[in-house]
C-alpha cells in the first residue's frame, strides 16, 4: 500500500496534543474515553480526525478546545498550554440548531464574539460582511437562524468562526446532521475558506469519504480506549472538486486504506506502539 506516513515536523506546531488521556468518573466506575493521544498540527494544516463511533472524538475535541480538562497530558496552542477556551480558537459544533443564539439575527450571531472582544464597530462590520460573503449568506443578515435551513444555519456558524479570525478552527462532525447535497457544498466551502485564510483546521468526522476529500492529512483513531491508529498524508491535488477528485484512482486508494484501518480499529486491532505503552 502506497501511503505516506507523516513527515517529521520541523517548525513549531500550531496545535500540539501530548499524551492526552481522559477518564470519566461515573457511578458505575471509571470510563476511559481516551487513553493516550499525541499529535501535532503545523500552522495552516487541514487535518481530519476519523474514528469508529465511540472512539472519543468529541471528548478529544472538548479537551483541545479547553471545555474539558484532560485527566493526563496536555494541549499546547502555539506553544501555550490550554487551560480554558483559548482566544485564538473557534469551534463549530455538530448541533447547528443549538449552537447559534435563536434570539439573535444572523448578523448579530456572527458579530457577538467580536463585540464581546471589544473590536471597534467599523472593523467589526467589515469582518462580519466578509465572513457572511465568504459563506454565501450576505443576503440573509436579518433573518433569525431558525428561519434558515440546516445547511444555512451551519454556514452561519462557520461565518461566526471565520469572522472571529481564529488561528485554529475545530470542527466537531459539523456536517453529520445535514443532507448529502448540502454536505458536499459545505465541504467545498471549508476547502475554499481554508485556502483563503490558511487557518489551521482540525476536522472531526466519522465519514471516511469526507475525511479523505477534505483533509491534507487524516488521523485515524482506534476504538476506545483511544490511541492513534494511523496518521497519513493525503496527497491529492490541492484543488479538489466533488466529481473529479472523488473519481481519481488515488482517492479510491486512500479511501480504501482508511476504510480498512477503521475496520481493523473496530475489530479491536491496536497499533504496535499502543500495545507496548
Amino acid at each position, binding site marked *: 500500500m502506497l501511503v505516506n506516513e507523516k513527515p517529521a515536523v520541523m517548525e513549531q506546531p500550531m496545535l500540539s496534543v501530548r499524551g492526552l488521556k481522559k477518564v470519566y468518573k461515573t457511578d458505575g466506575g471509571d470510563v476511559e474515553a481516551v487513553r493516550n493521544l499525541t499529535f501535532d498540527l503545523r500552522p495552516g494544516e487541514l487535518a481530519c480526525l476519523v474514528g469508529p463511533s465511540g472512539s472519543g472524538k468529541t471528548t478529544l475535541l472538548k479537551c483541545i478546545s479547553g471545555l474539558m480538562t484532560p485527566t493526563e497530558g496536555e494541549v499546547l496552542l502555539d506553544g501555550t498550554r490550554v487551560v480554558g477556551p483559548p482566544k485564538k480558537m473557534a469551534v463549530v459544533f455538530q448541533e447547528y440548531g443549538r*449552537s447559534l443564539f435563536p434570539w439573535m439575527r444572523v448578523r448579530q450571531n456572527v458579530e457577538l464574539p467580536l463585540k464581546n472582544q471589544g473590536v471597534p464597530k467599523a472593523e467589526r462590520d467589515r469582518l462580519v460582511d466578509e465572513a457572511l460573503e465568504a459563506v454565501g449568506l450576505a443576503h440573509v443578515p436579518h433573518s433569525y437562524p431558525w428561519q434558515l435551513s440546516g445547511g444555512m444555519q451551519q454556514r452561519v456558524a462557520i461565518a461566526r468562526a471565520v469572522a472571529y479570525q481564529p488561528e485554529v478552527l475545530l470542527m466537531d462532525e459539523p456536517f453529520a446532521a445535514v443532507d448529502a447535497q448540502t454536505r458536499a457544498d459545505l465541504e467545498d466551502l471549508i476547502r475554499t475558506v481554508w485556502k483563503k485564510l490558511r487557518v489551521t483546521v482540525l476536522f472531526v468526522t466519522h465519514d471516511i469519504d469526507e475525511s479523505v476529500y477534505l483533509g491534507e492529512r487524516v488521523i485515524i483513531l482506534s476504538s476506545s480506549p483511544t490511541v492513534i491508529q494511523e496518521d497519513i498524508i493525503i496527497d491529492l491535488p490541492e484543488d479538489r472538486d466533488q466529481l473529479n477528485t472523488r473519481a481519481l484512482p488515488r482517492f479510491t486508494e486512500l479511501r480504501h486504506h482508511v476504510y480498512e484501518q477503521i475496520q481493523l480499529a473496530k475489530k479491536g486491532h491496536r497499533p504496535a506502539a499502543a500495545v507496548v505503552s
Partner: protein
Amino acid sequence: MTWLKSLAYLVGLPLLLMLIWWAATLGRPNFFFPAPGILMDTFGEVWFGERILSDVLPSLGRLLTGVAAAIGIGIAAGLLIGSIKWLRALLEPTLEFFRAVPPPVLVPVLMLLMGITDSMKVVVIISGCIWPVLLNTIEGVRAVDGVLSDSARTYGVAGWARVRYLVLPSASPQIMAGIRQCLSIGLILMVISEMFASSSGLGFTIVQFQRSFAIPEMWSGIIVLGLIGVAMSFIFQWTERRVLRWYHGQKEVENAG
C-alpha cells in the same frame, strides 16, 4: 377589515353578556343585581370623580411598584441562585417553604411590623408576586442549553456578557411565564392589602360600599378591578410578543417541520 373583525371578536362576548344581563333584569328589579343602565350611571358617578385621585391611582401606584419590584428582585435573585449550584442547594428548601405561605396571612403581621402604610401594602404585593418570577427564573437559568453554553464559552462570552447575551434571553420564556402569574397575583394582593384596616384604595372602597349596601357602587368597583386586569393582560401580551418573538417563531417552525 381585519381590525374590524378583531374588534368584533374583542367586544362581541362582553356586549352579548350585557344584553343578557339587561334582559334578565328587565321588569324585575333586583336589589343585588342592578340593571346595566343604572350600573353604567353609577360607574361614571363613582369613578370619574375625585376617587380616581384618592383611590384608583394610589392603588395602581402600589400595584405597579410592587409588581415591578417583585419582577426586578425575582429576576436578579433568580439569576444568582440559578447560576450558583451550592446557593441553589442551600436555598431551595427554604424558598419552597416561603412560597407555600399564603401571602394574605402576612397582612396582619406586616401591619404590626410596618404599620398601615403604603410600604406595608407594597411589601404584601411583593411577598406574593416574587415567587413565580423567582422560581421560573431559577428554572430558566438551569435549563440553558449545554451546546449553546459551550459555544459561548469557546468564543469567550463570560461574566456579565454571558448573562446578558446567553442566560437572560435563554431564560426569558420561563421568566415571562412567571411574570404572567405575578401580575394576576399582584392584583389580588393589591385588593387584599387594602381590605384590612385601610382607609383608602380600591379594595377598601369596594368593601366599604358592600358594608353600606351601596350595591350598584360595589358592582362598579368590581368592574374597575376587572378592567384593570384586562388592561394589564393586554400590556403583558403586547410586551411578551415583542420580547419572545424569536421563541414563538422558533416554536412555529419546529411544529411545522
